[in-house]
């Protein structure tokens, strides 16, 4: 009986001690980066390799199922693609010509920055946020590959998110559909600035909300492109975010808000591109 009492007491104290440790950790990680560093390094050598392993097996199985596609299907697809190649070659030639013209004109204007040629590093998505409340994921590149905090992440042609945590061989990316994400954006056609705010309630519908678009005389139509703005402190300018799908005037009559359809399919992210220059670097230059 006495022994039983002792164990309950000590586990009570343990709870108290660990709770205090948790609170201290929270406070420390809020102020400095000192706690996260060692923990990230431990995770780097224990859990991350296993995540990568599972991911490799998953991709291998994916490849395997694709192998079962019949020859006929592949042939039909090949024919289709060949036609597309021809079509695109013609188009490409035209574009090449226009590109030379553009370069010439740019030189004339002395525009020294073209936003299309940011340097990028490819990475695989190895794990997704385990909970259902937020949307972030882990990629298999980290500090050793030159990844740093606040680097922008793209997939295909669109913006995916931003690097928020970096470990030696992994880093965490918060996607722009996450409830805590806010991106300063602008409409490509009118250069009006707005805020793209992620919302959990819209995450499942594959939409993102934009707000605080000035209610001026410009007409904005459904389908217009929304890109990252020049005034953002963390996002590089000119990256495509998505297309306007709904727009309405707010009840204050000063601003407009609505929804955009993101250019990226967030449900099936496998490979992403990390832009290895940050806005802070760009501003420092």
């Amino acid at each position: 009986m006495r022994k039983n009492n002792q164990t309950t007491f000590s586990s009570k104290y343990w709870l108290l001690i660990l709770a205090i440790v948790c609170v201290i950790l929270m406070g420390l990680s809020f102020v400095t980066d000192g706690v996260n560093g060692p923990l990230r390094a431990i995770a780097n050598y224990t859990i991350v390799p296993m995540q990568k392993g599972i991911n490799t097996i998953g991709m291998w199985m994916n490849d395997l199922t694709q192998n079962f596609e019949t020859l006929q299907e592949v042939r039909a697809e090949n024919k289709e693609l060949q036609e597309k190649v021809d079509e695109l070659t013609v188009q490409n030639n035209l574009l090449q010509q226009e590109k030379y013209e553009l370069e010439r004109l740019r030189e004339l204007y002395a525009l020294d920055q073209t936003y299309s040629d940011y340097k990028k590093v490819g990475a695989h998505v190895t794990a997704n946020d385990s909970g259902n409340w937020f949307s972030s994921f882990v990629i298999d590149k980290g500090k050793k590959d030159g990844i740093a905090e606040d680097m922008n992440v793209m997939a295909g042609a669109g913006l995916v998110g931003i690097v928020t945590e970096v470990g030696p061989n992994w880093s965490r990316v918060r996607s722009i559909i996450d409830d805590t994400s806010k991106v300063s954006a602008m409409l490509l056609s009118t250069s009006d600035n707005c805020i793209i705010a992620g919302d959990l309630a819209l995450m499942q519908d594959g939409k993102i909300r934009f707000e605080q678009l000035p209610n001026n005389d410009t007409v904005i139509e459904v389908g217009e492109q929304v890109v990252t703005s020049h005034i953002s402190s963390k996002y590089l300018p000119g990256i495509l975010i998505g297309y306007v799908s709904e727009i309405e005037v707010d009840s204050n009559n000063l601003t407009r808000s609505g929804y955009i359809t993101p250019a990226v399919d967030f449900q099936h992210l496998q490979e992403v591109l990390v832009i290895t220059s940050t806005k802070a670097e760009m501003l420092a230059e």
Partner: protein
Amino acid sequence: MRKIKRPLVTVLIVIICFLLESTVFQSLSFASITPNLLIVVTASFGFMRGKREGMLVGFLSGLIIDVFFGDLIGFYALIYMVLGYVNGFFKRIFYPDDIKLPLILISASDFVLGNAVFVFLFMMRSKFDYWYYLGHIIIPELIYTVLVTLVLYQIILHINQALEAEEKRSASKFV
């Protein structure tokens, strides 16, 4: 060897569940809802093994989530730890053959966890639409978790029973 085996197996279970949750179950999600395996592990160890072990398993589970997906280290660790500890109170009415108590405790734990996340991470950012989050996140996650519990709990129970049998055997050897 005997003493180290149980902690080793426990840590392994936690890590495997975290890995499954963040990789395999992401592709098995219904309407982008994934089950919470770590709450199943935490609660199970709580009512199977008592307060102290539930608390430690909860702390470890929460810490792993914090390192990978938390903004503040220690937030999930604290919640999971308290849940594991509270589940430990039910050890005295726990019988391995009865599946009702584990199901009730695990769903209650998941429900409390969901509400805690809502209060501390959403309400604090002035997002008050509780009924939406209840209907679209908390309850679906609870149902999916209960479904997974039916399988996962049996596995954890068997591992635990095997370990306990072995411990008993080696303890009786010394007597």
